[in-house]
């Protein structure tokens, strides 16, 4: 027997096993309809869950992107003050983040895919459930219990197959989301614990910022010194501003002002 025949046979037997047979077969229609509505609600929740996970990953991407941008800015700043070593360090940390961002973007795309699949599954199931509801009313109105059986079997196996399919889609989406949530949780924890910041900004990252700052404060000190030294000279009552300007901004300022 070919693969597609085997799968459909197994599918059908599972769907049949799932049917609860009531004494009056027409009652099974109502029972099944209730289960369909439950499943429909479950798909809707599934769509919402996947969307939540996707948004969480998006948020993480934005956070990490912000850190990467900051490091890029620091690297540029460091180059302006001729500190290639600092620029290198900033870029190295940034490249670690870039890898992580790329990974998260892949997850984001996968979650988006799952979300779309589940949304389509919801639409398909919805159409079938509505068809089942109409059929159910017809069967109950026009057939005796004995006559109804064949009609019921037809309707039930059609809807049962769709339910099996949608059930699988939900399960797969849940599995994938659970894996990603575990990873997203790990990244959230890293961000919260500052370990990632360590890589990028606050603690270790700030050593770049600190060093850049200390350089500018060093030049301020130099400027101040120069002003004080100049201050002993008679003409230097207010000349500090000029020297300070010049000294603090020296290489950096000249490059920023290039375009103008």
């Amino acid at each position: 027997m070919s693969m597609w025949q085997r799968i459909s046979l197994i599918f059908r037997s599972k769907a049949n096993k799932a049917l609860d047979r009531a004494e009056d077969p027409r009652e099974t229609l109502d029972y099944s309809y209730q289960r369909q509505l439950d499943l429909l609600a479950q798909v809707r929740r599934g769509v919402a869950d996947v969307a939540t996970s996707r948004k969480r990953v998006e948020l993480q991407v934005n956070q990490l992107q912000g850190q990467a941008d900051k490091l890029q800015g620091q690297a540029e700043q460091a180059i302006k003050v001729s500190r290639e070593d600092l620029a290198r360090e900033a870029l190295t940390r940034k490249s670690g983040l870039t890898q992580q961002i790329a990974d998260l973007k892949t997850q984001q795309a996968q979650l988006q895919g799952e979300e779309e699949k589940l949304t389509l599954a919801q639409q398909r199931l919805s159409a079938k459930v509505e068809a089942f509801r109409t059929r159910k009313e017809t069967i109950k109105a026009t057939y005796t219990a004995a006559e109804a059986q064949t009609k019921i079997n037809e309707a039930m196996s059609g809807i049962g197959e769709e339910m099996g399919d949608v059930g699988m889609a939900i399960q797969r989406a849940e599995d994938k989301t659970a894996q990603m949530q575990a990873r997203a949780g790990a990244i959230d924890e890293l961000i919260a614990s500052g370990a990632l910041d360590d890589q990028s900004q606050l603690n270790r990252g700030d050593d770049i910022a600190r060093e850049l700052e200390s350089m500018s404060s060093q030049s301020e000190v130099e400027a101040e010194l120069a002003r004080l030294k100049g201050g002993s000279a008679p003409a230097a009552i207010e000349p500090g501003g000029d020297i300070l300007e010049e000294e603090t901004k020296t290489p950096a300022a000249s490059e920023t002002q290039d375009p103008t």
Partner: protein
Amino acid sequence: MIVRILGEGQYDLSDDAISALNDLDAKVEAAIEAGDDAAFHGALATLLDGVRTAGVPHDADSLDSSDLILPMADASLAEVRDMLDDDGLIPG
């Protein structure tokens, strides 16, 4: 005949189209039996494309059962193995 691609929905196909696709189905099955992952993904993608091309979507609000059922496009070899196994992952 009605063919369902899991996760996608049902398609109507002519008997001729089905017999043409039978060879592709056999290739998928052979790849599963050989445990050849690359061949499996290639063959399944070709088979599903064949169904989508040769078939037309079956009425969304019908309650018809499918004659044939195919795995979803992103199914793994292990998943399809499970599906073919009676205790597989198809929820009751």
